[in-house]
């Protein structure tokens, strides 16, 4: 949403212009305009980039991606992540390489869903779902442990009892991450850096970005030949 468009929203909702005080036209971002509530107990469609509850991803062979490096904890502005690494058992490793995330906890009473952890993660182990409908009756329950965060055998987030999951909501576990990442060079839009996917599900580039990319006169060659 551009500055002017945003300013327009502000103006429109102002009392002098007959505004309604409530920012309905921006309740949830651009995608929300398209969304509609289908019934009493239906959820509004969420924007693709919505940052929800995290997951810890695994490789296709079941190995965990987290290596316990604590970069997510280091970058977290809310200091809500606690990670401790441990050495992999060479006979029965939890993750490829030397180390794995032994303890992984996120305190959702503190998390501001900024996704800096996702950007910091060198192995794309942590991504976010669109799950935002979860609540607790005990503060301790708000601290998700590794057992709850790690994805199930199919790579999808676990549907925890106190979360309100609907069918299809777990199709994508992260939105358009690379576009905002530090190395998100526009020349590499659509090309996922290390893995074929960020979390669960392959995603299309967003429409406007794809158009912008198509119109570029310079066509940059792939860095990663053989990648499809």
């Amino acid at each position: 949403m551009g500055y002017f468009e945003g300013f327009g929203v502000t103006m429109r909702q102002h009392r002098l212009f007959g505004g309604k005080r409530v920012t309905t036209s921006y309740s949830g971002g651009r995608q929300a305009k398209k969304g509609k509530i289908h019934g009493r107990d239906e959820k509004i469609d969420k924007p693709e980039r919505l940052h929800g509850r995290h997951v810890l991803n695994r490789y296709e062979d079941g190995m965990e991606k987290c290596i316990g490096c604590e970069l997510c904890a280091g970058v977290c502005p809310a200091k809500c992540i606690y990670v401790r690494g441990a050495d992999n058992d060479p006979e029965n490793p939890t993750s490829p390489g030397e180390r794995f995330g032994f303890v992984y906890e996120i305190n959702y009473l503190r998390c501001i869903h900024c996704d800096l952890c996702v950007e910091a993660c060198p192995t794309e182990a942590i991504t976010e779902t669109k799950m935002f409908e979860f609540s607790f009756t005990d503060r301790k329950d708000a601290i998700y442990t590794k057992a709850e965060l790690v994805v199930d055998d199919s790579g999808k987030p676990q549907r925890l009892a106190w979360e309100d999951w609907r069918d299809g909501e777990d199709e994508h576990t992260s939105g358009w991450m690379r576009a905002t990442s530090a190395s998100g060079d526009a020349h590499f839009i659509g090309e996922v850096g290390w893995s074929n996917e960020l979390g669960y599900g392959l995603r299309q580039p967003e429409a406007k970005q794809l158009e912008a990319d198509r119109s570029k006169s310079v066509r940059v060659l792939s860095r990663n030949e053989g990648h499809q």
Partner: protein
Amino acid sequence: MVAVSGHVQRPGVYEIVNGTTTFRDLIYGQEFCGGIRNGNQLKAFVPGGGSAPWFVPDQLDLPFEGRLVGAAGSMLGSGAVMVMDHTTDIPAAALTLTRFYAHESCGKCVPCREGGTWLERILSRVVDGKGTEADLDQLLEVGAMICPGAFPHASSEELGLEAVPFPYKMTTICFVGPSAYAPVHSALTLFRAEFEAKIVKRTMIPVTAMAGGEQ
């Protein structure tokens, strides 16, 4: 005294007159090497040991004189002349020399230790027919990390090349690092076509074609 090896009739150690004997005298003279073996054509020769940039027939009439050889883009070095006839596989010959210097590296300073090994690995890939066009430029770029700036090479009338005179700049402590690069640079500058013949031609795929949106 110079030691001549390679594709000549009579390889050996010869006493020459510094300043007057030319490379033509040495290679073709009957009192010296007696010409190229089997009546073949001279393709290239190394005037002063494996670490020296190469000469081509254009430089045959240069006398053994340090200053003149230096100005022509090489050096007299150890006085070991290596002669290559037209049957020589130039990339393979360059690889032999580079592999030698990469192996000889003492490992003390970084450009020689890492650069020499890297050059050897790229070059052997090219010689094995698994290289790409980008690898050829990569060879020169790795070389520039060992010897930044202009690197000396011989002139070539055929290619329209001007000679770049000695010396070169180097980032290493001693001359082993640049020596690993000298044969690569000479071979690539004077015989690039032979390298290109060895590389795999591939169609480069524009990146947008691989984006998910164009599936």
